[in-house]
Each structure stands twice: as structure tokens, then as C-alpha cells.
């Protein structure tokens, strides 16, 4: 079991090809026989590949200045763009949410500019510092949610009142689930299931908000 946990914690190195050859062979042997590690490795590869496909350009909306101000770090450093994405296990879950956010930003722009207008570059954290990645992702997620909330609040009259009620109730349900997952995670921050469950529930909230924004834009 201890061996399993040790390999699980190093799957990011394994996927990035940064493991010494002898360890890599042993890790590969473990992954081949461990369904859970295989699934996590598959997810890591998927996130890595999607991240690698992101455009090589500065984000239209750099989230770092806001993050830096909030955590008291001077925004004077110049960080090179990094194309290699390395995640710890809890960060993997947050990364999955981050990738969904690209779509959320696109939806906001679609609603602002009208149908058919080209969406702006999504808000991605390619220029954000490597640490604290999880915090940055959380801030970026909250920004995306706030943007969508603003759009929906501004245009909620475009929707039928019963639809608004259903969406409000569903978002409240999701918020309760997020709160419970966060509370559980506070007691066990490194638990893979709790991390994944929180990320999945956060992703679901963004998905519902994007659908609501799409309904508004179609009305």
C-alpha cells in the first residue's frame, strides 16, 4: 500500500518523463497493474495534452495582477511562459476545472458580443507563477463564476421566471455540495476522492452557469 501511495504521488513526474530510468520502469510496472494509477495517469496525460495545445500567446486577461495584489506579492517579476505542466494530485483536480474555465470565459464573451461574434482568448494561467498554483486556480475559478454571475444577473429578465427559479435552486444545490466537499477536504486535504469530487462539483457549477448564459444569449 505504501508503495502504491508513493507511486501515486509521483505520477506527474512519470507522465512528464522526468523519472530516472530505473524508477520509471518500476513505476510503469505498477501503473500497468493498478487501475487507479492508470486512471490518474490517463487524466494527467489528458490535461498535459490539452494544456500543450493551448495557444502560444499571452492571455487576453492576465489574472496574475489581481492574484498578486490579494496575496501581497509585488507584480514586478517577469515569468517566462512555460509549456510543461506539472501537477500534484490535488492540483490535478483543480487543473481540470481550470480547463473548463476556458469555455466559461468564451461563453461570457459570446453573451457580451452577441451570437456569432468571435470569442476572445480564454483566461488561462500560462503567465501565473508556479506557486501557489492551487490558490491561483481557485481565484481564477472564482473570477469565472463572478463573471458569469454578473452576466446572469444582468439578463435574468430574459428568462422565464420558472426557469430562473430552477436554475437558482440548482446552483444553490451545487453550492451546498461544494461547501460540504470543502469542509470534508479540510479534514483530509490530500484525499484523492475528495479532491476529485470537489473539482467535479465546481466544474458542474460552471457548466450549469454556461448553459444559463447560453439560454440568455439565445433569448
Amino acid at each position, binding site marked *: *500500500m505504501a508503495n*502504491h501511495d508513493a507511486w501515486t504521488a509521483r505520477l506527474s513526474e512519470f507522465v512528464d518523463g522526468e523519472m530516472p530510468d530505473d524508477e520509471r520502469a518500476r513505476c510503469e510496472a505498477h501503473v500497468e497493474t493498478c*487501475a*487507479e494509477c492508470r*486512471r490518474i495517469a490517463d487524466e494527467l496525460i489528458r490535461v498535459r495534452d490539452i494544456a500543450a495545445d493551448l495557444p502560444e500567446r499571452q492571455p487576453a486577461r492576465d489574472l496574475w495582477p489581481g492574484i498578486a495584489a490579494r496575496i501581497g506579492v509585488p507584480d514586478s517579476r517577469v515569468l517566462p511562459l512555460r509549456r510543461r505542466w506539472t501537477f500534484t494530485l490535488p492540483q490535478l483536480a483543480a487543473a481540470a476545472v481550470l480547463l473548463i474555465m476556458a469555455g466559461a470565459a468564451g461563453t461570457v464573451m459570446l453573451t457580451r458580443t452577441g451570437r456569432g461574434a468571435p470569442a476572445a482568448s480564454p483566461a488561462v494561467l500560462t503567465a501565473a507563477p508556479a506557486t501557489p498554483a492551487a490558490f491561483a486556480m481557485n481565484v481564477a475559478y472564482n473570477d469565472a463564476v463572478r463573471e458569469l454571475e454578473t452576466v446572469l444577473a444582468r439578463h435574468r429578465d430574459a*428568462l*422565464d421566471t*420558472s*426557469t430562473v427559479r*430552477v*436554475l437558482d*435552486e*440548482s446552483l444553490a*444545490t*451545487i453550492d451546498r*455540495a461544494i461547501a*460540504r*466537499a470543502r469542509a*470534508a477536504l479540510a479534514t*483530509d486535504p490530500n*484525499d*484523492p*476522492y*475528495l479532491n476529485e*469530487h470537489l473539482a*467535479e*462539483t465546481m466544474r*458542474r457549477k460552471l*457548466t*450549469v452557469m454556461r*448553459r444559463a448564459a447560453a*439560454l440568455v444569449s439565445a433569448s
Partner: protein
Amino acid sequence: MLAAIPLVLATVVGLQQRTDTTVAVPAGARLEVHNFAGTVRIDTWDRSEVRIKADHGSRDRVVIEVRGGLVRIQAERARGRAGAIDYDLMIPRTMAADIEGTETDVVVESVGGDLRVVTVDGDITVRDAGAAVSLNSVEGDIRLNGGRGRIDVTGVEGGVTIGGARGSMTVETIEGDVTLDGVESGHVDVSTVEGDIVYRGTVQDAGVYRLTTHEGDVTLAVATPLNATVSVSTFEGSLEAAPEFGLTLSSVRRGRRQNFVVGSGSARIELESFDGAIRLQRR
């Protein structure tokens, strides 16, 4: 004076009219229907024609456009949005269909082409879908009976019921229950926040089955012998497994995720409920 009364009534209540027309369509054509309120019923036949029957108010006009491989049906009114319209359509058996509505119920039978339905406040019922199916309703219930292609279902408040389907399927709701009955699929991914999930079907070797909820219960009822690696995750929920499965615990991760191997372990089953009951039952 008397002669003016029918005209006044027509203006006030919007007298009902029926449009009934048939248009020829080329092979491989696609249908698009936009309907704000009412119903859309679609059935198929072996002709290269689309028949459109629509009951609508006298102030509304049904507009049918045939342009290349696209047949587009929608209604218009001189001023404002068209009222409730009930469509009854016959389309070629292999035609793909794309239906969008707001307060619209949709019923589709035996469509052999790709099918996409989006409605806000309406139920969706589909029987015997022959290709890929994408069904999406915010407030309504979604029912699919028989599907051979890929199935994507997204709901919010309503329940989802799928029976006798064979394609790969992804189902996502927030508050609704999800019931999959008589399913024979190698890929099933169901998630909800508050709803219960029930899966009664087969588990294929090398298949992947993922059933996740936050507050609801998860029930997987399958035949024995079962060959699967079963991952069970919960925070405050419980696991109840029929003894016939002979679950062999292979690993435990701090009590949140437990992995079991049943038989050869070839299929992958993931069952998750944050605080509901997880049941593995013999079918």
C-alpha cells in the same frame, strides 16, 4: 355590425389554423425545427419527403426553407414572437434532426439519423433512436427507449430514464434521478448532484461504468458472474454488496475509496456517493 364579430374574435383569440404541406428533400438532408412553445412530434417514413402539419394561431405563419441539404422550419408573426404551435412531422428514416424549443415538449420516434433536442421547459421522449442522440432539457423529464448510437443527455431539474439502449452514454443532471434499465453498453458515465442513480444492465468485459452522485444513492444491479475492478468512493455514505459478488478488497485509500476485484477484473466500475448508499445488487 354582426359581420364584424368574427373578425374581432379572430383578433382576440387568434383562430387556430392548420398548415399541411410536403416538401421533397435530397438524400442526406438535415432537419432543423425552432419552436418557442407547443409540441414537436416527429415520426419517420420511407419517402424522400418531409411532411409538415402544424396547428397554430391565425396570426402565425409557418416558414419552411429548403436550402441544399437543410430543411428549416420555424414560425413568424408580423409583430412579436409566434405563439404556441403543435408540429406533427414525417421525415425520411435516416434524416438527421435538430430541434430547439423553449416551452416545447418533443416526441421523436424511430429517427435513424443523428438527433439533437434542446428545450428549456419541456419533456423529451425519444423511442428507437438509430444514431447519435443528444438530449437537453432544463425543467423537463427526458425519456429514451432504445438507442444504438452515442447518447448524451443533460438535464437540470427533471429525471432521466433510459431503457434498452446499447450505445455509449453520458448522462448529467443536477436534481433529477437517473434510471438506466436494460442497458447493454460498454461505456456509461452518469453523474448527478442530488438525484439517485439506478443502473440495471450488463457489464461488458473491458467496459467502463461510472456512476457518481453527491447526495443520492447509487444502485448497480447486474448479472453474475461479474468480471470487474470496482472502485467505491464515499465520504459519509455506505456500501451494500450482495454476497454473490464475492468482493475482494484490493486496496483502501483512507476509507474514502476502496477498490475491489471481482472475477477477472476486466471491466472498470466506479461508484461514488458523497453521503448516500452505494448498492451492488444481483440482477
